[in-house]
């Protein structure tokens, strides 16, 4: 019987004891004539953090955006395969894209607060869904800002423009904005790459707490960040035809201490040319 030390094992044990929130099945995304990603099979476990890593141009962002149909906005983008959310394919004809984007929210690399007050930023989503009563909106705004660890810093300045905040605060505002829609999955595209180290650690902390209530998928080019905050890691690489493919997927603990594929080992130890 292998003794399980409580220090590292919770990551592995917890990482496996969870249900499937989303599933990517044989997904290929093509822009006009060039394939961005091909034949990706990937599980996304509920209430866990999945990190997607890989060299530049390997299709990480494309894969992420495929999870909430943001690729639809790019003219000429074609999707083959399926992306299941709670068992249903989000690309099936007749699916409500607006609802999918509500359930699967997105936080971008550069913080993008809307040109309106902090309050209006967070209330944007709820108002979009039809909520109008001030008391209800007040409640949601406060709750979301608290969840994003921003409430204490802005509660007396809710009328201030969202763009007047610092970089780290702006990113947390964007997270609060996403949370206000009560999503089930939160996608993050290199959320801290534009932030200073302190802000980065604050956001990482936030992600650890958020995963209790949401499922999180994060694209990052910072290996140490992926190792620090994720439960599962997927390593994508660019093939000779310039399309991205999945090299390895597994619990983060395994991928970073004893990866199965040499390519993965070479990438994470920095031996990639």
């Amino acid at each position, binding site marked *: 019987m292998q003794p399980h030390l409580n220090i590292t094992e919770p990551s592995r044990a917890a990482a496996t004891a969870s249900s499937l929130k989303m599933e990517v099945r044989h997904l290929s995304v093509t822009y006009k004539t060039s394939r961005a990603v091909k034949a990706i099979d990937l599980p996304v476990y509920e209430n866990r953090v999945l990190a997607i890593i890989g060299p530049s141009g390997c299709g990480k962002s494309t894969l992420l955006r495929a999870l909430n149909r943001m690729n639809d906005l790019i003219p000429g983008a074609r999707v083959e395969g399926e992306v299941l959310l709670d068992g249903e394919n989000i690309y099936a004809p007749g699916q409500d894209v607006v609802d999918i984007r509500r359930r699967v929210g997105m936080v971008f690399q550069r913080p993008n607060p809307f040109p309106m007050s902090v309050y209006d930023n967070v209330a944007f989503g709820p108002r979009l869904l039809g909520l109008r009563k001030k008391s209800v909106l007040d409640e949601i705004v406060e709750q979301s800002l608290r969840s994003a660890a921003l409430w204490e810093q802005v509660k007396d300045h809710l009328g201030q423009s969202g763009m007047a905040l610092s970089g780290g605060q702006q990113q947390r505002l964007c997270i609060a904005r996403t949370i206000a829609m009560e999503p089930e999955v939160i996608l993050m595209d290199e959320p801290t790459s534009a932030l200073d180290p302190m802000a980065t650690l604050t956001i990482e902390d936030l992600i650890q707490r958020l995963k209790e209530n949401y499922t999180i998928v994060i694209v990052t080019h910072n*290996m*140490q960040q992926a*190792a620090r905050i994720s439960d599962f890691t997927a390593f994508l690489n660019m093939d000779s035809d310039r399309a991205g493919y999945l090299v390895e997927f597994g619990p983060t603990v395994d991928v*970073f*201490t*004893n*990866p199965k594929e040499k390519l993965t*080992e070479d990438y*994470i*130890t*920095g*031996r*990639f*040319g």
Partner: protein
Amino acid sequence: MPRTVLETELRNLKGEVLKQGQMVGDAMLAAIEALKHRDVEASRRIMAADRDINALRFEIERATLIVIATQQPLAHDLRLLASILDIAGELERMGDYAKGIAKINILMGDKPLLKPLIDLPRMAEIATDMLRQALVAFSNDDAETARAIPGRDDEVDALYNQIYRELMTFMIQDPKTIDQANYLLWAAHNVERTADRVTNICERTIFTATGEIVELA
């Protein structure tokens, strides 16, 4: 090729570990030689030299921690550094065994040997050879060889049993020999423990290369 700094550091650290192993092997053989010829001066020098082995161990440890802190090693690199820490510790204790044998030589005083030492030097030769092979395998990331080395420990154990029986016979026949016999038994025990620790080094080599923790008999 990227990570030249890390590569250089790892190469240096492995070199230092090999150096420490060399020092330990030499100390062991020298201690046995000194005991064979009852050279007390040599034994005193060996005991003093153990300080150098200990100092090297801590230097290796310090350097390893620095590499871990500054290079964010992962996967193979990380396992390698963890193994270096472990092996440096094993070698330091092996150095202590050699020191112990030297001390025994001094404690035994002026009395002549009960019998010329044959099996004990033989044990030491095998053990130090195992050590040398194990460190080379570690340096080359050679799990295959590492798996094969612990087999020779049987030979060492066999020799130990033989020495044990011989010394027991001496002690039973002539109680005046108990003092020296005890010391010699203790010396043999130290050599036997050295060979056992070499097995640990082999296990570490396999872990570094494959990520598996195996128990080698």
